[in-house]
């Protein structure tokens, strides 16, 4: 009974922790962008201000029920994913889920967004969401290959087992030292899944007016800001769990997560954007090739 209560508490607490860490990841992203452009950048609490302000805005614009539900699906998919991602001290229901379940859950937000944006009948939104689904189709293939390669190597789809194996053996047994090729392909897929430049085809502010976000204001946009913080958190924690041995304690865990995220972000703000077909061609060629080579190394 006591353990059930503890699990319930963890499942409630983990998304909250993820949200706060995710907001600081957004802050780091904006700070890094500012530093690369030789600016000072936003103050420490800026992501909090943004989210609170957006939820404090008044709006009576509604594009229908599906539009509202779509946003809830987008945030809810990530909230569910957080309870499957073990963090130091909290495992939640990770032993019941595993990475296959996680891979499913991280696809739900894009689908929810597609449902919601489809209802608002803005052509920019429709273009944006079709591009978002195209890019999901592109990065999911290397992503799934990498996940299955790692699962094959550790002989388990359970994230807790994967992390325990890596922590027991030290740095030499970390995914990144045992499967460097897969790790590179994974980083590539992670970068594409974040939707940052050069893979920014579906946001594209100057081209399609931020695509899926075009009709979102006030609380809807606030929901998307929350979703973005969850997205950054989920992507980096999953990568850290698969390749960098998870977290022994909160300090090393957070250091690893922020370091992993900093790599794609630093690359992102130096590049313009690919076209849709170029993105699909690039992502289906290089990371998939690397991932397949990595899987071949793992299997031999």
């Amino acid at each position, binding site marked *: 009974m006591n353990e059930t209560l503890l699990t319930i508490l963890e499942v409630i607490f983990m998304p909250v922790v993820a949200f706060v860490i995710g907001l600081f990841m957004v802050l780091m992203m*904006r700070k890094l962008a*500012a530093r690369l*452009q*030789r*600016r*000072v*950048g*936003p*103050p420490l*609490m*800026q992501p*909090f*201000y*943004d989210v*609170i*302000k957006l939820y*404090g*805005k*008044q*709006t*009576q*614009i509604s594009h229908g029920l599906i539009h509202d539900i779509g946003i809830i699906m987008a945030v809810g998919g990530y909230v569910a994913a957080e309870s499957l991602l073990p963090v130091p001290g909290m495992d939640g229901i990770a032993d019941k889920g595993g990475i296959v379940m996680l891979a499913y859950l991280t696809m739900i937000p894009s689908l929810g967004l597609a449902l919601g944006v489809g209802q608002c*009948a803005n052509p920019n939104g429709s273009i944006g969401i079709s591009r978002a689904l195209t890019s999901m189709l592109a990065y999911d293939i290397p992503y799934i290959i990498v996940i299955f390669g790692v699962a094959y190597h550790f002989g388990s789809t359970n994230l807790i087992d994967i992390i325990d194996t890596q922590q027991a053996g030290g740095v030499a047994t970390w995914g990144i030292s045992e499967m460097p090729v897969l790790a590179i392909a994974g980083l590539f897929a992670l970068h594409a899944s974040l939707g940052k430049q050069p893979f920014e085809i579906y946001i594209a*502010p*100057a081209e399609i*007016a*931020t695509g899926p*976000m*075009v*009709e*979102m*204001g*006030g609380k809807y*946009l606030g929901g998307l800001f929350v979703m973005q913080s969850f997205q950054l958190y989920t992507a980096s924690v999953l990568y850290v769990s698969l390749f960098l041995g998870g977290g022994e304690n909160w300090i090393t865990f957070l250091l690893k997560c922020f370091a992993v995220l900093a790599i794609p972000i630093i690359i992102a703000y130096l590049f313009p954007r690919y076209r849709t077909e170029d993105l699909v061609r690039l992502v289906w060629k290089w990371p998939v090739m690397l991932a397949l080579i990595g899987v071949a190394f793992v299997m031999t």
Partner: protein
Amino acid sequence: MTQNELEKIEISTQPKRTNPLANVFDDLVRFCRSRSMFMLHYCTGCGAIELPPAMTSRFDMERLGIQPMVTPRQADILLITGYVSIKTLKRVILTYEQMGSPKYVIGICSCTVNGGMYWQSYATAKKLDEYLPVDLYIAGCMPRPEAVMEGMQQLMQKIKTGEADSWKKYYSHYDYYLGNQQQLFGNNWQTPTDIIGEAESYQLMGPQTLGEHTKILQQVQKPLEPLEMKL
């Protein structure tokens, strides 16, 4: 109603709530509003050229939490940077009405104050305040980025103290603004946004919301129809 009379009108600000916790919450939301302003990437006239230096590395507006957004739905502040021709004014009004409340309008350059050097032009709207409620003017031809930043900080201060609520004026005195708009655009003028309905929803209906001009609007108003999809 003349301009002077309009300026004297005070919007009945919401009375302070009795619950002290609710007051703290209201203060927090106001503070966050002042520290996070998304401005619409829609600039008119020549003053727009002063904004890139204000946004980029020299002056960096992001320090104050101001960042550009691309659609009216996402934005909080509408910058009118310079003269507004009558054709542009139509688009400005459409844009303004689509923004979610609370929304703020900043008039940059002298042209928005009194027409500036376009005073004698037949195709330029002279005083922006007759068509939209303006929260803040930044005078100058054109104001330097320092002046723009200073103006932004003043707006932040006004939002923090709760003074910047001219968006309520648009709802409570819609008849006046609509009258001026009809004078320029003709009696067939209508926008896709139902301002009277919004005023009811925000509980901002005043004695000046409806009047002779809204009667004309209600006579000519056609219901919106979805655009036909054609390839």
